[in-house]
Every structure is written in structure tokens, then in C-alpha cells.
């Protein structure tokens, strides 16, 4: 079961706190990726504070637990904050993000032994394959829990994703819920400008996936979509959520632009962002 099982009101407060963490983390080192992190915050908070069954007593195998993989590793700030807030490690450690000798590397890694992380990611396109391998190992182990994996939409330009997509359907890996963070932005501009992704629903359906769509920045809509995705597992097809999000969600000047993909706010911008991300009881690290 989920160790937090928060109500929607609680989830909203948690998400605001996580967003505060994100902007403070990237501001502190003047580097990192706030845009995608803010856009995916509600998804991460939903998984770790409501949807996934797991224990914060971390083991690599995670036997009989739901596993999460982050393929677009650059949005590490949101994952680190959520892992800390969920209880995997002390929130004070968020202050070490991207600093020398930290377990919170720029991109997530198992190399420094940070609890909650099962494989390195950063070089794009590799997470779906790893998640599929973990899902198949669960089947071999008669473990009927699920594997979640998040990918960026720009990341779908990597060929390996489509190798993995083909494999998942062929081998009927139906204990996986993959999600695409569909924010329509990548470093050089919008996905439409850089490399058109076309009709992703039609593409994944043609590859043999069960596809559903979700609003990734609205708990009232996202939670039912995650339930629906769960209900679609175990039926012989891999499951994909096309999750519409807004890059930079929650901070008005960061929203909807690729410009905040990998840029940190300055002191003044941080203050404005924190004002917009008010919580009832802030517990900043």
C-alpha cells in the first residue's frame, strides 16, 4: 500500500512544497532543470503520495512493490524532492543538489547509493527499456506489482524508445504503465519546431499499446486517469499515458516556454516564485 495515501487537499499542499523545493534547489546552484520538474510535480506527488505501493525502506529489487523509473533524468529536482518528502532520505540533503560529493547528482544515479533510485538516467531514451526489463523480471518472480516509467516527449525522438515500444507489445509486457510528459517543449524550442512528434496516440496504438490521455496538472483529473491506467494492466498490452502538462507549472513566468527547460531563477525571480508557491505550513529544507 501507499505509505502516505494523501487526500487531494493534502496532495496539493505536498505539490506546492515540492515546487518550492525545486526552485530553491536549482536557484542554490544556479543550474538544473526547473521547467519539466515543475510540470511533472503533480504526477510525481500522485505516484508517491497516493498511487504506488511501496516501502520507504528501500531495496534495489523492491519485491512486491511498485517500481518507478525516470527516463528523462534531467528533471531530477522533482524526483529528489518527492523522494525526500516521501521519506527515503532527509529533506536537508536536498541542499546538496549538484554539489561536490553529493548523492544528488545533476542526473539521477545509483552510483552514489541514493535510496529510491534503481538505475542512472540522463542520456535520453534508455528508461523504457530498463523499466521493461524490471517488469519482465517481476513476472519471472511471480510478483504482480507494477512498474511505472516517465519519459519526456522530446525524448521520443530517440530511436531506442521505439525499439522498446515494439518489444513491449510483442512480449505482452502488461505490468507496465509508461507515461509521456507531453509539454510540447524541448531545449531548442517547441517539439513542433524541432521535430514534430505527430499523432502520438496513433503511433503508440499502432505499436500495440493501450493508450489513454491525462491532464498532468490537475489532481482531480490525473488521479482517475492513473486509476484507469492501473485497471488497464494485466490485459496483454503495455499501457501508455499521454500526460499533458505545462512546463514550469505553478510559476507564472516559467510557464509554457522552453526557455525554462534548463535555466535557474535569479534571487528576485526566486522570491516571486516562492510567493506564488505558497503553502499553509511551509517546511523548506
Amino acid at each position, binding site marked *: 500500500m501507499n505509505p502516505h495515501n494523501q487526500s487531494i487537499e493534502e496532495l496539493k499542499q505536498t505539490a506546492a512544497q515540492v515546487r518550492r523545493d525545486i526552485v530553491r534547489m536549482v536557484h542554490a546552484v544556479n543550474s538544473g532543470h526547473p521547467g519539466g520538474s515543475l510540470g511533472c510535480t503533480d504526477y510525481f506527488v500522485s505516484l508517491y503520495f497516493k498511487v504506488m505501493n511501496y516501502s520507504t525502506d528501500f531495496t534495489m529489487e523492491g519485491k512486491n512493490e511498485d517500481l518507478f523509473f525516470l527516463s528523462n533524468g534531467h528533471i531530477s529536482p522533482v524526483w529528489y524532492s518527492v523522494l525526500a518528502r516521501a521519506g527515503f532520505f532527509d529533506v536537508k540533503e536536498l541542499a546538496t543538489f549538484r554539489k561536490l560529493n553529493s548523492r544528488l547528482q545533476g542526473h539521477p544515479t545509483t552510483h552514489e547509493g541514493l535510496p529510491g533510485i534503481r538505475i542512472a538516467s540522463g542520456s535520453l531514451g534508455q528508461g523504457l*527499456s530498463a523499466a521493461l526489463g524490471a517488469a*519482465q523480471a517481476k513476472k519471472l518472480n511471480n510478483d504482480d506489482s507494477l512498474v511505472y516509467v516517465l519519459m519526456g516527449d522530446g525524448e521520443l525522438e530517440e530511436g531506442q524508445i521505439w525499439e522498446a515500444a515494439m518489444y513491449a507489445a510483442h512480449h505482452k509486457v502488461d505490468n507496465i504503465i509508461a507515461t509521456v510528459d507531453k509539454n510540447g517543449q524541448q531545449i531548442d524550442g517547441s517539439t513542433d519546431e524541432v521535430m514534430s512528434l505527430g499523432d502520438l496516440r496513433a503511433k503508440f496504438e499502432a505499436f500495440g499499446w493501450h493508450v489513454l490521455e491525462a491532464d498532468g496538472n490537475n489532481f482531480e483529473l490525473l488521479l482517475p486517469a492513473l486509476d484507469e491506467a492501473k485497471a488497464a494492466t494485466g490485459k496483454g498490452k503495455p499501457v501508455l499515458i499521454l500526460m499533458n502538462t505545462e512546463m514550469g507549472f505553478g510559476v507564472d513566468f516559467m510557464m509554457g516556454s522552453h526557455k525554462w527547460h534548463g535555466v535557474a531563477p535569479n534571487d528576485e525571480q526566486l522570491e516571486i516564485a516562492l510567493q506564488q508557491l505558497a503553502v499553509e505550513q511551509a517546511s523548506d529544507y
Partner: protein
Amino acid sequence: MKEYTYTEKKDTRSGFGDGLLELGRQNPNVVGLCADLTGSLKMNAFQKEFPERFFQVGIAEANMIGLAAGMTIGGKIPFAATFANFATGRVYDQIRQSVAYSGKNVKICASHAGLTLGEDGATHQILEDIGMMKMLPGMTVINPCDYNQTKAATMAIAEHDGPVYLRFGRPVVPIFTPADQKFEIGKAVMLNEGTDVSIFATGHLVWKAILAGKTLAEKGISAEIINIHTIKPLDVEAVLASVAKTRCVVTAEEHNRLGGLGDSIAQVLATAHPAPQEYVAVNDTFGESGTPEELMEKYGLTEENIVAAAERAISRK
């Protein structure tokens, strides 16, 4: 010169296939993955006996490496296999991030390495794979010399917790190592003790080194011949002990002279015991189509090349 004989020749890839089958029977966590080369990799028997533990990936090597990395999370020991070129160069970043940096217990099993796959030509004849793999922190690199040793190595790497690159090949070569050998990762094998020159050979060049040793003995030269089946971690102690005695070195490998066994040995010598060294290796070029024998001759990887290299090394002492 110690006498080495053989009664049979076999391909090292069959040693891999037979080792994997035996391993499958011993260890239920062993799984096999292959990218549409099951027959070439001799994995059919494993596939037939353990269909639920064999994963056909199709022509998609990047995905295969990622899948294998993911399977280790559930405690599986994946043997991911294809031709050496597609197992390394094509998927270097996947190996680097998802396997090596992530410290995953994946066994990358690579057949058709080097020139001796023959007629398919340079697109398939990788000569850079040892270099690429040994550069990765934490990666173990093994290149056994015959069928028996490849079988023993295949079984031994399942006991080692960490990523391994196991390199083998297509041609039939003499089986001269014992069937019941214990394969020790990182432990060089002394084949012949000598005093004039140390010949460190790996893979298919080990048998050629033995043949060269006989010729050298006829010329009155005492060659020490050592099989370096594990290029990383290198048995530095064995290398230095031998060079202390002979004071000159020949390295022999079916690989580019850049980045292979020779360079690993040279690095040890340069820092610990400078000594003349001669390379028997491909001289920074691609291969081409031809029979394995023709290619080994054209690119300078014969018994005669080892003899000549030994004489040059001795003359430079």
C-alpha cells in the same frame, strides 16, 4: 618448450552456448537475451530448454542492453548476446549509462569478434571492442582462447557480481585447455616458463603463441608464454614477475593495437618496469572480406609474426 596437443577443434562461441546451457540448469536466475542471432550465438539449446528465460529482442541491440540492465533489478543474471560489433560500438552509451555507471550485473556476450569472422568484412569485424569496454569503470573484460576456456569463463562470470564483457569468436580453433579447468577471473595462465622473452597473448592468438614458442625453442630462444584471458582486471603481478625475468615483451591479440591488451601491458611496463615491447595486433586499420586465414596473414596476426616480434623484442634489450 612444454608440449601442447589437441584432438579436436571447435569454435569458442559453442563454448559460450554450452556453458550457458549448463549454467541455466544450475542457476534459475540466469536469463538469456539475443538480438536475432540465436543460432550464430549457439543459444538454441538454452532457448529450447528454458523458453521462459530466453528473450528474443529482435534487431534492437540498444533495447537489449536496457532490458538486461532492468532485469538485474529483479535479481536476474542476464546474458545479453550478439555479434561483438553490435554488442559494443552500437550500444556504447547504453552500456555506459544503464550498465557500467549503474553497476548492473549484466553479462555482455560478444561473438564474431575480430577479423576471424571472415567474409562478412569490416562492417562486422570489430577490432576496437576491447578498448571501448576496458575504458568503462567497473567493467571486467574477458577474451578466452578455446572452447573449454570459453565454457568455463561463461560459467564463472555468473558468479561475479558486476558487469562483464565476454568476447569470443566464430572460427574453429584447437581445444588445448583442460575441460575441467577452474576459470579464475583476473588470473593469468602460465603456459610455458621461459627466460628470453615474455609473450602475453589473448583469445585466438594464444594457440598461435604456443606454435611460435615451439619455433623459437628450435632457434634456441626460451619464450615464456602467458595466456591473458582477462584483460581487465589485468594480472599485473603475473606480468611484472615475467618481465622481471625476461626483460622484454611481445603482446598478441586479434584487436587494434590501439586500446587492446598490448596497451594495457604497456601501461604497466611504463609505470613499473620499462622494457622493450613489440605488438602483434592490427595496425590501426579496418579489416576486409577474406577467409579467416587470409586475413590473419594479411593483417600480421600469425605464428610467424609472433616469432619475428619476439626476435625484435630480444634485440632491443
